[in-house]
């Protein structure tokens, strides 16, 4: 009876407290479940994406990617990311700065508001823009009168993407800046630096790894967003299709090889992001407050 008990407290689990050390069988079962789950739901699909993409050979793969509509979708995705990521970096830094370094009324509310895009379905985010800018929308008539096109065009896609990605940078920086406090900035000011110099020479270097991490996640989401963009894009081939939308169209047309070819690019992006993220965490884990779930 006592034997398995003793084994489970063997010295090589010293770092765990005995109270949480499960018996060996329980641990094995948990590990198997976890790995099986990860394998079936994450790894397998990824493998299938690449397998399908190359099912008809390298030639078909490159051809699928050089098709004009596909190239246009890639270009649009890059453009959208190129606009929305810098916007959200600016917003994220300002919001984090305000929340971490100043006391003001409504701070808790602002913090909650920043998380809104995480808690609301992306489709709803898209619909909000339709309600705002659509022909029947709040500003629709005014926009039409002034010849401004937002919906079913690039501006709408950018807006929707900005909306769904805006928590990433801010959420990364807020805890980091809060933890660092005002001390370094006050030191810089006392040495004669103006606000901008304090930011550039002191604040920014202090949060650079967290910022990079946030940018990485923000970029991955900006390129991969489907729901919100789908609602506002209008799916005009060669014009308002981003990569994720294009994948869906190709797939619906039973063009599986091309669909998976484009999908493999997105999957590749995800993998690169993951690797960079892991590297960053390994190297600068302490600086990146990595306790929040993304």
């Amino acid at each position, binding site marked *: 009876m006592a034997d398995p008990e003793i084994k489970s407290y063997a010295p090589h689990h010293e770092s765990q407290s005995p109270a949480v050390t499960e018996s060996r069988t329980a641990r094995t079962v948990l590990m198997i479940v976890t790995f099986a789950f990860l394998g079936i739901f994450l790894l397998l699909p990824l493998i299938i994406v690449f397998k399908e993409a190359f099912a008809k050979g390298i030639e078909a793969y490159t051809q699928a990617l050089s098709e004009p509509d596909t190239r246009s979708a890639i270009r649009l995705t890059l453009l959208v990311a190129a606009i929305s990521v810098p916007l959200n970096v600016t917003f994220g830094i300002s919001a984090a700065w305000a929340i971490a370094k100043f006391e003001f009324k409504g701070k808790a509310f602002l913090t909650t508001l920043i998380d809104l895009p995480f808690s609301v379905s992306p489709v709803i985010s898209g619909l909000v823009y339709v309600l705002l800018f659509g022909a029947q929308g709040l500003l629709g008539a005014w926009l039409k009168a002034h010849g401004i096109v937002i919906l079913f065009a690039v501006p709408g896609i950018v807006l929707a993407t900005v909306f769904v990605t805006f928590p990433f940078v801010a959420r990364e920086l807020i805890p980091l800046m809060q933890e660092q406090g005002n*001390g*370094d900035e*006050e*030191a*810089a*000011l*006392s*040495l*004669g*630096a*103006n606000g901008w*110099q304090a930011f550039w*020479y*002191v604040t920014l*270097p*202090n949060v650079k790894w967290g910022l990079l991490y946030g940018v990485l996640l923000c970029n991955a989401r900006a390129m991969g967003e489907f729901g919100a963009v789908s609602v506002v894009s209008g799916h005009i081939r060669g014009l308002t299709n981003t990569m994720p939308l294009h994948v869906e169209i190709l797939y619906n047309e039973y063009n599986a090889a091309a669909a998976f070819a484009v999908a493999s690019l997105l999957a590749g992006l995800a993998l690169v992001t993951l690797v960079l993220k892991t590297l960053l965490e390994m190297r600068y884990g302490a600086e990146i407050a990595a306790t929040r779930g993304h």
Partner: protein
Amino acid sequence: MEVRVANVRKEFERFPALRDVSLDIKSGELIALLGPSGSGKTTLLRLIAGLERPTRGKIFFGEEDASQKSIQERNVGFVFQHYALFRHMTVADNIGFGLKVRHGPSRPSAKEIRRRASELLNLVQLSGLEKRYPAQLSGGQRQRVALARAMAIEPAVLLLDEPFGALDAQVRRELRRWLRDIHDATGHTTVFVTHDQEEALELADRVVVMSQGRIEQVGTADEIYDTPNSPFVYGFIGESSSLPVKVEDGQVWIADRPIGLSAPHAPQGEATLFFRPHDVDLVEECNGCIAGTVAASRRVAGTRRVELEIGGERQRVEIELPVDHPAAQKTRVAFRPRRWKLFPAA
């Protein structure tokens, strides 16, 4: 540079951290702000620096009203309690920072900045550590780099918040002497915060004792120690014993017995008697003395401390005896304070 704090009040969301504080700091003086936690020392220091604005009152640098000036314009060297060194910059870059961020002709060349940094490192006895990062320094070394960085801008006033607070006792004592030397060599008007009275009394030209947002007493170490002007200062600085007493007919009484101390000028009525445990005369037979039974006794280095219970109220006081004094063995000890002070009961 002279600094004058005039009737300053500082509230944080209505909580008064400082209430009507006035203080004249002489040019070239080394002055300590001493007080228990929460007494407003840091707040006063930050107000002088310009990191906070007073709710009321003014702060003068020389003849000039500095109250409305920003921290940059005040040109103060501030050493933070936890140093606040820029962790991504080398020691040399940290020290040169204040010069690098200057504008126009007052900004020295990069070469000149490096030279100044080395010179200051030399002053703080850290030559050769230019290329290190703060994380690669010991606590005491960081402290010195922080001081060098603050001095690089040739500040009008040097302000230090618990400069040795985070260091162990040994290093503290070393740096204390060293700070005194640096101060004597450079002559900066210097204000430092501490809650270590030994540090304040040993190091400072004058000590400012603070409590609950007020200045209790300002004076040299001797003045503060020998003539405390309030029960708080008596209790806070050095060791003290106190007893509730009564003043009548110019005599000090405990219960219904005079204790042989005459106080012709003290107001009649309830009062508290303060004295130092080591400042007592033992007396053999008691006609006019304080007598009590030994309740506890402990050895403190070269002396013995005994705790006496006095009178029916069993008030406890501590006095000091030579280790080999016969009285230390007795259960009943009689004594009379040599130097003492009365404060009317609150």
